[in-house]
């Protein structure tokens, strides 16, 4: 299945783009998507462990099953204000 990932904050420095498309074997969860992204490097994998993930305007857990067409938002540690 194909899913789209939108990269926020410093995560974009590791993907080089705001949007990344992943192809995953079914069934897959958010954790599988993060594991695939983490193959890009140890430093990014470490940042991914500190990321929250959202679908739409809801935070989701790593155990959430994915479906084709899902769009994940990758939310690294926040620093507003």
């Amino acid at each position, binding site marked *: 299945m194909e899913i789209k990932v939108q990269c*926020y*904050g410093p995560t974009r420095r590791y993907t080089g783009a705001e949007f990344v498309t992943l192809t995953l074997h079914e069934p897959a969860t958010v954790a599988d998507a993060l594991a695939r992204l983490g193959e890009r490097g140890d430093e990014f994998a470490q940042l991914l462990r500190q990321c929250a993930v959202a679908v739409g305007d809801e935070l989701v857990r*790593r155990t959430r099953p994915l479906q084709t067409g899902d769009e994940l938002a990758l939310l690294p540690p*926040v620093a507003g*204000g």
Partner: protein
Amino acid sequence: MSPADFPRIQSAPLSLDALIADGRDDCGALTIFAGTVRNHHDQRPVEYLVYTAHAPLADKMIREIEREVAARHRATVCRVVHRIGRLGIGESAILAVVRAPHRAEAFAALRAVVDAVKHRVPIWKEEFYSDGSSAFVTGCCIAEADDAGAASAPRHAHEHDHDHDHDHAH
């Protein structure tokens, strides 16, 4: 538009007047906080900042935090707006206003709402330095504490009100 309906994430300069336009006859206290862009960080001169946000989630979370803090501190009105985009030195990145019957609740709620927004809402700050380089300010993990695989320890350390500086813009 009533101040209660304002988008909490805005790309235009923030207006304090708009946030306090609706008075409250039952409140004797109005507290206001503005976080402004500072010209240095860790002894490096900062030229400007760029804030980005997951706007739909950030807007929803700020409204939830406002309700939660208002209820906990018995404040009558609790509102926060955060700016995104490029901000020059001295511009306001965040405005928070609280109205309450008395000042003790208003001060406490103001501090709590600003701390919660800084620690829990998906907003990122990138600093641009005078040598042309830039860096994202290190922040707080917002994954659920029991979300397997997420390193959520930093968030726990910020669940309480505190005084320490950790890379604030103001």
